[in-house]
């Protein structure tokens, strides 16, 4: 017999009524699949230039025109002074302040879905910045510790979200200036 309800997952009917159950007539349950597929035309807004420059191998931050605080990731408007910021270029070198080793991927997009676990999420204080930048640190978990020098590396492969045009790698000794 073909199923009359195509989305039906299952039904369950109570074996017997429990004495005193006020819901006794409502215990049979049917479950169906509900699909919700969404796709957005999503603007990266006033931080778009950060992502555009990643394609050119340049790492930008913003500096508040009022207090001078340097934000990486960039903030077009300084939350401390509400002054409009200026773009500044950083070297892309920095230091790990804290991190986690993730054993599952949230699958937020195709780039993240493709990650091999475990992977390292590092919070990096870039030279010249006052805030921490969270990103993937491509290194074996045992290698990673607070104080580790890292630098931005630029992706060769096409990516899904432009934030994946970059990631961090440890600075090896001979690279150090």
């Amino acid at each position, binding site marked *: 017999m073909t199923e009359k309800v195509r989305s039906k997952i299952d039904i369950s009917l109570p074996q017997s009524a429990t004495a005193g159950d006020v819901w006794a007539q409502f215990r049979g349950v049917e479950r169906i699949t509900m699909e919700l597929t969404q796709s957005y035309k999503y603007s990266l807004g006033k931080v778009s230039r950060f992502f555009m420059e990643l394609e050119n191998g340049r790492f930008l931050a913003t500096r508040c025109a009022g207090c001078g605080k340097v934000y990486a990731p960039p903030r077009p408007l300084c939350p401390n002074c509400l002054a409009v910021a200026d773009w500044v270029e950083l070297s892309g070198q920095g230091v790990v302040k804290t991190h986690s080793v993730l054993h599952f991927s949230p699958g937020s997009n195709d780039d993240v879905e493709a990650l091999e676990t*475990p992977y390292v999420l590092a919070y990096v204080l870039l030279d010249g910045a*006052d805030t*921490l930048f969270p990103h993937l640190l491509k290194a074996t978990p045992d290698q990673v510790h607070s104080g580790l020098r890292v630098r931005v590396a630029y992706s060769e492969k096409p990516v899904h979200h432009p934030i994946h045009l970059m990631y961090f790698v440890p600075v090896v000794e001979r690279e150090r200036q």
Partner: protein
Amino acid sequence: MSLAPVVAAVGATPVASEHRGCNLRDLMAEAVLDCLADAGMDDLSSVEHGLTSYESDHFNLGMTLGAILHDTIGMIPKPNVRIEGGGATGALALRTAWAHIQSGLCDSILVYGCEKNGRGVSSRTANQLFALSADVDWEMMVGGSYTGFYAAMIRAHMEAFGTSEEQFAHVAVRNRHNAGFNPIAQKPMDISIDDVMNSRPVAEPYKLFDCSLLSDGAACILLSTEEWARRHCPAFDRRAPVYFVATGCGSDTMRLGDRYPELTNFRAKRRAAAQAYAMANISDPMREIDVAELYDSYSGVEIQAVEDLGFVEPGHGGPSVAGGIFDLDGELPVNTSGGLLGRGAPVGATGILQAIEVVQQLWAAVDPQRQVAKARRGLTDTHAGIASISVVNIFERRD
């Protein structure tokens, strides 16, 4: 004579990984019927205002659930407000209701919250939806997740203060143990520190048993003026009056990295606590609070919370927790309900469930095995994200 609202009655469903036989309306209705029974009232005709508490339109597959639930429980045509504040939603809803009563806008308000975070969607979908509650372009798209953000924070705490994995494992063990005395708890367990230490890594240093639960559930609290409760709620005079005496709220940046150099603790929580303590005239919370429900989304978060709430000195959370002063037989028992780790966390209901536990402790109405003797003042601590929003509510028994 205080103008503070009283807790007239409370109600809740059991918390479960999946309430397969109930959709969200059914769950909410069951919690409201439980509240009516607790109040000794036949219906909600005397209640003047509603307040809906739920977090996620996506998890619950609905965008006007405030209106739908308000209709379901028979509150039409009375006014209603829907509150959303991430993980803090339930506590923020109670805080908002507090202001409704204090302002004189109404004398009675039913705060009702629910969520189906359990198994309605796949783990992947659940992770994506939770990731959307982080900073989308900068944290979510790089493979970040809340487990990862919390893990990075507790690692900083470990490096700054010497906090150990065994110390936060104590929270994972104790809260699941406490849940064993709570009939509505989702996952009571008697496990050992070793079980926690040996559970599989999720986001190091957090392991499986350090992580709280995804849950289905609903809860509600009827708040009113004392005069309204005496007139309309038969149960009110049968038990000690409990007042909702103080509420505090604070906020912090969405991204952890924007908080640098502070990575170890929750500024928003310190702010919320300071505001609530000032309102309740509390100067020494460790001595002046008898019972507390803390937001243990991850085991280590409780260690950070006891510091930010001023129960112990900054950096002393680890040894204090592991030393047992927050256990059922300790100086200040916390998470007697089992917390988010053991009782569970249906988001929109979580803050309400925390308040219910504290209120029932003050009524001396819980299972004797988890009852705190002579509890007169209790606190709830609830936050959103990594405490981008933090709410502290304080309840007091006065008889």
